């Protein structure tokens, strides 16, 4: 029940003095309370839990994180021990083995 999932704001309206949004979760659309993120805008993503938007998802930060992951190992390939790299390419790396199961 702690599950909180990212969703995209489709539209926003004021209902009985409460700021509410319709939010799209990959095709499933639900009503979400925006009282804790009053400046969230249409088109933005937020982490939603039991009908409440709890935190804005920062697109720039997501992009940076994925870029960091993509760069991992590149330095190792460039400057690393060539014997280790060769052994890895030959399938001796345990991570490689598991990955290919």
């Amino acid at each position, binding site marked *: 029940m*702690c599950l909180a999932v990212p969703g995209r704001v489709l539209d926003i309206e004021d209902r009985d003095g409460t700021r509410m949004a319709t939010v799209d979760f990959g095709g499933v659309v639900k009503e979400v309370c925006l009282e804790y993120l009053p400046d969230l805008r249409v088109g933005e993503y937020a982490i939603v839990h039991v009908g409440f938007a*709890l935190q804005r998802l920062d697109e720039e930060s997501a992009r940076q994180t994925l870029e960091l*992951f993509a760069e991992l190992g590149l330095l190792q390939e460039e400057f690393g021990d060539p014997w280790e790299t060769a052994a890895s390419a030959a399938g001796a790396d345990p991570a490689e083995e598991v990955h290919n199961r």
Partner: protein
Amino acid sequence: MKYIDEFQDPELARRLLDDIHATVTRPWALMEVCGGQTHSIIRHGIDQLLPPEVELIHGPGCPVCVTPLEVIDKALEIASRPGVIFCSFGDMLRVPGTGRDLFQVRGEGGDVRVVYSPLDALRIARQNPDREVVFFGIGFETTAPPNAMTVHQARKLGIQNFSMLVSHVRVPPAIEAIMSSPSCRVQGFLAAGHVCSVMGVEEYPELAERFRVPIVVTGFEPLDILEGVRRAVRQLERGEHTVDNAYARAVRPEGNPAARAMLEDVFEVTDRPWRGIGVIPDSGWRLSPKYRDHDAEHRFSVGGIRTEEPAECRSGEVLQGLLKPHECEAFGTLCTPRTPLGATMVSSEGACAAYYLYRRLDVPAAAAREASPVV
């Protein structure tokens, strides 16, 4: 979907795994605090892809699992009363109290309803002014703000027939209790990402310093968990113990200030028993005196119910990371999701249920033969 698919990418996962393999030189035991993370780890087999030196211990962060038996018994008592509509998140229905559960109360004629959001329960209260509507408010710091807002709205709108049975729990005191246990093996923590989305990270530096453990705020997708492990292992190998945020796209250092202010207004800190663990000082929230009119414990006079935890279930050891689910002799035989001995087998986020769902074929054949067939 955006922000989910990208963080399940197998090629990037391989890079993270390679980096962890290259970094680790000796055994390390990390605890993932949140039950959602446990579920993701077992579902994706992340523990089996990590180097053998890195052990993941499954922490107490499943709110359903740690809700004390005594609170379940209070819920059952209130839900059985005529004139009450008892609303709950779905995963509380099958959690065994003493002798029965909410599902059975419903079978016996109780009006028990499953809601997606606490606001749904408030709407039911407005639609049924002649009935008492009670919401079962459990959960960690992630769920507390929605519940707090709902009580706040009930008070503001003057909805007199709405009350909440509150049993909220907080992560930092649980980390403190785990680290203070003489049998503790944990050397680093993957902190619960969505708890920190609300609370920020300010509560953790003191714990990291005092117990000399790295605390890495971690998300829920496979790449998030691998990155949390990678950063924790890197710190451990260097002899460091700081708070690090590996889930920056959803966690700001200050958390969500509006939600924190609401928590401060609606709740007050209290000692709270955790199922299978016992009382942890200052580890919970209850409604503050200002909201006493909406406190179901007070309204239905169930504050006096006291229940002893049964000894047969070893979930307390599982919740403290002292026992893996499949190492329990009842796992998959006496104890299954259909006949749970304890909450860790009931809740979809419980460690025992996750092992039963994804790992029970790995347990010895004899145990598997006796296990109930899955429908």
